[in-house]
């Protein structure tokens, strides 16, 4: 497929969006048409993506191919086209987005079948794919930014999909606002880049940055710091991660697609795209790795004490994104991206699996007229006999995320940890990051085992009435799960390291993309024995976490949510997510709103400016006018007197 047809990948979902959008208003109940338009457009897009990928592969496209669609912002020397950039990185991202996207669309057909907003849902989902593809295909930062903000918009709309509930609408708003803080960083980075480099195209940046920027200098550090601020927003890193757990208010397939597989990884993609800048800014890179490691550990620890199945997965996502940032912060961009890809597989699988559990639970509760929480794991238990396929597939994903060989997560996570350790040689901070990563790996395995046990093993706690209605959803939902299961299990093949007999296929594929940064990063060779030792450590952490988590959870006395006792001690702090949300609310949100209301608006605007100055001057003039009006007695005689006095005075002037 010719590369210049890449716009078709965007055009199909756009068409799907338009059709579904129209249907949402005109025929909201035409579910079949909506399904065809929604899923069909994605599959078509995937086919085109596959064609593009194969073309890139067979034609050995190394230099990015720019496909210009139209001139967008031609302003004097500043000139931005709506243009797509096709290169190995874009090709990989295309496949991930459209591939995982297609599967999740398909899953949604089953999951959302009975929702009143079916057409609206697919319209949003298609629009999301449009923006996500613009994000990964954009050939310049502003075009990327269209996608960047566009996916934020779709995320906002989909989190607040069931908007009649205030909490959902608030969660959507929160996500958008947090993202906007990050977008502020991206904007500033763009301005600084334009001011120093005179270009915002990725090709131009790669060309000009080595020429005009001082490695490790202020300018490049500033630019990368601001770019990374954008990443913390979009990819839910400390300090802007709190929106992602709340984003679980949206439908579960949305969580899988947007808040696990694609959108939240945009930050990693952005760093990879502008890798040359980050390679030139070692200070920022260290910060990124540090933030990533901290986030990984911090979020994993919160995940240990969550009861909502989706919340556990959400914190898991935050934590895994932290890993990716450790990777790109360490300079191994390929490993970061590799983890992005495998994470897309297994986390999508986990979310969809959770979706199928929630679907089953929801149906059971609905049928038995219970009002219990269908997402609370304390109400589940022993579901393996009711949902066997889901059980197996979710275990595959669990093993993958825990880093157990030979599942995909093992390869990607191990690479990141190894690289961090290696980097420790010249920057000791990285040893700390490595240790934190290892601890996080242990915690990850622990909470995943806890999740699996609480959901699928042990006694069933959903109540007798509901139990009868529990059953596995249909093939349209399990089908995508199976495909993702295969990918999660085997995704590691993409980039098997040399130490394990592979040849770094993904690394080889992406080498041209990261060529500009290669010169700034010294690659240190690792002795074989150390490498095997590191692998062993990582595997050990994962397996230990799994085993301990399994045993601990199975042995604890679990009660349904209604009867459960509140947590105490540190567990309570964890269950309340370290009270970060509350702290943000008290320290930032309320003071800003309160300050705006009572000081800026009431006191300054209404009191000082409008009251004292504007109305005050009006009152002053009115007072002077009142004084003048006291002369107006209404007695003609007085007027004549004044008149006469004036006349005398004029006469005096004229005659005297």
């Amino acid at each position, binding site marked *: 497929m010719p590369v210049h047809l890449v716009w078709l990948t965007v055009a199909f979902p756009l068409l799907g969006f338009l059709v579904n959008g129209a249907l949402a208003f005109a025929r909201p109940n035409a579910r079949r048409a909506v399904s065809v338009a929604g899923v069909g457009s994605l599959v078509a897009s995937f086919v085109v993506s596959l064609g593009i990928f194969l073309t890139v592969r067979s034609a050995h496209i190394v230099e990015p191919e720019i496909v210009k669609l139209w001139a967008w912002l031609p302003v004097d020397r500043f000139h931005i086209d709506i243009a797509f950039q096709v290169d190995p990185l874009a090709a990989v991202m295309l496949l991930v987005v459209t591939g995982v996207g297609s599967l999740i669309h398909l899953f949604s057909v089953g999951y959302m079948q009975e929702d009143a907003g079916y057409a609206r849902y697919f319209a949003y989902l298609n629009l999301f794919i449009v923006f996500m593809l613009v994000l990964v295909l954009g050939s310049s930062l502003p075009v990327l930014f269209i996608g960047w903000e566009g996916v934020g918009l779709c995320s906002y709309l989909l989190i607040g999909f069931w908007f009649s509930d205030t909490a959902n609408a608030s969660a959507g708003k929160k996500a958008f606002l947090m993202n906007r803080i990050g977008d502020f960083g991206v904007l500033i980075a763009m301005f600084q880049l334009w001011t120093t480099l005179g270009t915002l195209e990725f090709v131009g940046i790669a060309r000009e940055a080595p020429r005009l920027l001082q490695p490790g200098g202020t300018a490049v550090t500033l630019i990368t710091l601001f770019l990374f601020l954008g990443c913390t927003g979009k990819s839910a890193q400390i300090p802007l991660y709190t929106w992602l757990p709340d984003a679980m208010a949206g439908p579960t397939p949305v969580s899988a697609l947007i808040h696990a597989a694609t959108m939240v990884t945009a930050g990693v993609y952005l760093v990879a795209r502008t890798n040359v800048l980050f390679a030139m800014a070692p200070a920022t890179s260290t910060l990124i790795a540090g933030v990533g490691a901290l986030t990984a550990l911090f979020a994993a620890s919160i995940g240990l004490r969550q009861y909502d199945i989706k919340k556990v997965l959400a914190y898991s996502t935050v934590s895994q994104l932290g890993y990716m940032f450790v990777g790109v912060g360490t300079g191994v961009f390929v490993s970061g991206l590799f983890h992005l890809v495998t994470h897309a597989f297994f986390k999508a699988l986990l979310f969809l699996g959770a979706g199928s559990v929630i679907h089953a639970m929801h149906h059971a509760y609905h049928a038995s007229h219970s009002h219990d929480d269908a997402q609370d794991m304390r109400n589940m238990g022993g579901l393996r006999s009711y949902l066997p396929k889901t059980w197996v597939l979710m275990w595959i994903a669990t093993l993958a995320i825990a880093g157990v060989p030979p599942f995909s997560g093992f390869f990607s996570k191990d690479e990141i940890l190894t690289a961090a350790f290696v980097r420790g040689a010249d920057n000791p901070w990285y040893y700390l990051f490595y240790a934190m990563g290892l601890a996080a790996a242990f915690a990850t395995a622990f909470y995943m085992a806890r999740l699996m046990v609480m959901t699928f093993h042990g006694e069933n706690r959903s109540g007798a009435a509901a139990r009868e209605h529990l059953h596995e959803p249909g093939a349209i939902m399990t089908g995508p799960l199976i495909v993702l299961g295969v990918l999660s299990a085997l995704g590691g093949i993409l980039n098997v390291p040399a130490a394990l007999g592979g040849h770094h296929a993904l690394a080889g594929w992406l080498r041209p993309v990261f060529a500009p940064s290669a010169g700034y990063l010294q690659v240190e060779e690792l002795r074989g024995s150390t490498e095997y030792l590191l692998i062993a450590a990582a595997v050990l952490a994962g397996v230990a976490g799994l085993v301990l988590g399994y045993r601990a959870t199975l042995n604890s006395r679990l009660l349904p949510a209604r009867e459960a006792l509140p947590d105490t001690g540190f567990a309570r702090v964890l269950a309340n997510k370290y009270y970060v949300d509350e702290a943000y609310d008290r320290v930032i949100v309320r003071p800003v709103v309160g300050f705006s209301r009572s000081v800026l608006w009431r006191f300054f605007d209404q009191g000082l400016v409008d009251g004292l100055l504007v109305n005050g001057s009006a009152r002053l003039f009115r007072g002077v006018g009142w004084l003048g009006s006291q002369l107006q007695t209404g007695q003609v*005689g007085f007027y004549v*007197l004044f008149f*006469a*006095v004036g*006349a*005398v005075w004029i*006469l005096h002037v004229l*005659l005297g």
Partner: protein
Amino acid sequence: MTEVVFYVFATIAVVSAALCILQRSAVSAALWLVTTMFSLAGIYVLLGAQFIAAVQVLVYAGAVMVLFLFVIMLLNIGHSTPDLRGSSMVGATVVVVGLLVVELATLWRYTPRRLAAEITGTPLANPAALFAAGQAAQQETAARGVVGGVAAPLFQQYLVPFEATSVLLLSAIVGAVVLAKRKV
């Protein structure tokens, strides 16, 4: 002789004007005003404006003052109570009017010669040259009579204003009728 007559008329005019503003009764005031107007008509004759003098008697002393008396009688306010203003107002009036008289007193000594000197800024040997228009008008009056002397400029040079006054009078009539009507 002319001067003597002038001063007699002037005295009558001033005295009756003073009485006009001091009389309590509106009717007496009106009658004293009529006296003032008659004496002014006499002065007009002395100044060579016989036509104006005639019109003064006809219009002012006749029509206008009769209108005043009609209204006074119509409203039945001929025997009104004292209507002078308060003492502070009287004091202010005395001061202001006194100043006015002082300012205007200088007019007493004006002659055509002095006027011409003030207008041109230098004393003139022959002030009559400056006031050629006045002499021309006197010749005109001599040629055409007192009425013709006024009529010629009125119907030639001042035709448009003249017509405008007719419109004014018409609208005054309409206005007076509308205002004086009992119910609108």
